[in-house]
């Protein structure tokens, strides 16, 4: 199919406009992170810092609360990712392989939870966790993150399980392998890449999450990175732009790296879901 030259040029122009729109805030964040305070106070900011400095990063790293918060975030995200995958994989297996009413109900829950009104859930959740004495604790937050990551985890994993031919499992059974043996030595290895992708996705959602952390964690030493970052923004707006930008940039890096790794798989997973519909 031939496309006319004018149309092609128009397409490139449009794509360029999109690139600018998508990239400029991010570039500005990075640029701000490398600017010395003196330059940030001047009325004519430039794209490229006139005298780039690492002082903002040093200052951000020097802030005890930030490092501590990053550690909390890391713990919460790792915990959520590991637990979510551990409990979601067997359930996804059942949902993919069996047509029980339970599996149907679970599928229904996955769909409904996509439209979950957080307002309606957070107050009871707060009360339930309070009764379990898990309020203001990372453990409680991890539990919430696990459940919060489950719908997408199940959704992805069910797709991956379906991609493993049931015939393989049947062959193993014929060869005399028990159920557990079959699952562990035939199904699990084939599922491994999908499980890793799902875990990484759960990691990002927990690392990025803000609302639950804001409500459930009150002690400053226990708060996660997004919550602590908002403390940097005073009532009068941003007091210290440079360190704020530096900290925000650093907070983004883990998600960006992980997302870059699993990007193909996630879009592929969405594609699989879309094709089926």
């Amino acid at each position, binding site marked *: 199919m031939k*496309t006319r030259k004018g149309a092609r040029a128009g*397409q*490139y122009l*449009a*794509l360029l406009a999109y*690139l600018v*729109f*998508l990239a400029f*805030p991010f570039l500005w*964040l990075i640029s701000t992170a490398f600017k010395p305070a003196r330059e*940030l*106070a001047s009325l004519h*900011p430039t794209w490229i810092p006139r005298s780039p400095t690492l002082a903002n990063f040093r200052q951000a790293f020097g802030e005890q609360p930030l490092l501590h918060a990053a550690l909390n975030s890391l713990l919460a995200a790792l915990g959520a990712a590991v637990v979510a995958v551990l*409990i979601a994989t067997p*359930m996804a297996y059942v*949902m*993919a*392989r069996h*047509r*029980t009413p339970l599996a149907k109900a679970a599928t229904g829950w996955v769909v409904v939870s*996509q*439209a*979950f009104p957080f*307002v309606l*859930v957070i*107050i*009871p959740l707060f009360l*339930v966790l309070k009764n379990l004495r898990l309020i203001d604790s990372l453990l409680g937050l991890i*539990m919430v993150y*696990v*459940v919060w990551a489950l719908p*997408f985890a199940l*959704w*992805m994993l*069910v797709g991956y399980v379906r991609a493993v031919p*049931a015939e393989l499992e049947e062959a193993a059974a014929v060869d005399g392998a028990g159920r557990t043996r079959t699952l562990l030595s035939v199904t699990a290895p084939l599922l491994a890449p999908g499980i890793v992708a799902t875990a990484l996705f759960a990691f*990002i959602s927990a*690392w*990025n*999450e*803000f*609302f639950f952390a804001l409500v459930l964690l009150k002690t400053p030493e226990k708060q996660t990175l*997004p919550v602590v*970052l*908002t403390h940097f923004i005073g009532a009068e*707006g*941003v007091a210290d732009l440079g360190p704020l*930008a530096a900290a*925000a940039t650093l*907070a*983004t890096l883990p998600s*960006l790296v*992980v997302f*870059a790794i699993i990007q193909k798989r996630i*879009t592929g997973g969405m*594609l*699989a*879901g*879309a094709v089926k*519909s």
Partner: protein
Amino acid sequence: MTLASATRRPATRMPDTGGRRRPVDHGAWFLVLPALIPILVLSVGPLLYGIALAFTDAQSGRTAPTQWIGALNFQDLLHDTLFWDSFRIGLLWAVGVTVPQFLLALGLALLLDQDLRLRPLARALAIIPWAMPEVVVGIMWRLVYNPDAGILNETLRDLGLGEGHDWLSGLGTALPAVIVVGVWAGMPQTTVALLAGLQNTPRELHEAAAMDGAGAWRRFLTVTWPALRPIALAITALNFIWNFNSFALVYVLTNGGPGGRTRLPMLFAYEEAFRYGQFGYAAAMGCVMVAVISVLLAIRLAGRLKGDEDA
């Protein structure tokens, strides 16, 4: 959930259960329970509990026992003009974000579906807003909108378009300014979903239509759009719900200000519950939000489906 984040969230419904029929065995329960218990305790349970709370006078830190008060919370809500103002802003925000989000994402998806040179770069960039924590997105745009050190005002000054504004504190500019951020943050996911749909439309049909002399616009209307429609409908409905329920972005950008001009219902309910401790009343707000959104979506989707039958 937000992707964070969204992060975050699948765009379409579950694939159909394609598994084969097998007798129910008890091992299945053993496999399901570890996930089922947390789901019941921390998801299904709280949801039902939340609905029940809406009919009580529950408050935080009160020693007197909580009592059933029937529909009193809802009656109060009916006369709460502040809440309805916030609700109106929430609808404005949700529509204002969802519609441009969809149109821009559709444009980008169509471009990415073409054989263009910058495609890998565009794909990589399109992912960034998706992966970023919402709080960072908010902080980043505060830097862009910053009246003195922000790039937006500086660009306007350079172009000779006035001295610029204090975008996030201006009564008239705050809501449009946060809507732009909402569009930016939510576009990638919509783009990816639509792109998946596009790559699923039959190429042969496209070529056949081109052979018959159909122009690009006609080809889009007769070949692409019908194939894309189910996905477009699903992602728009989800986007609408997600946007209406969004919290972190606006919390960081304006915290509902100036003068409540950007106080989304989620922010309102959050303050009611966790600043003033009115758990029952805030739960009632949640119920109303869910109910109104469900009805709106049902009407909209029913209208669309009816349109399908007429066509």
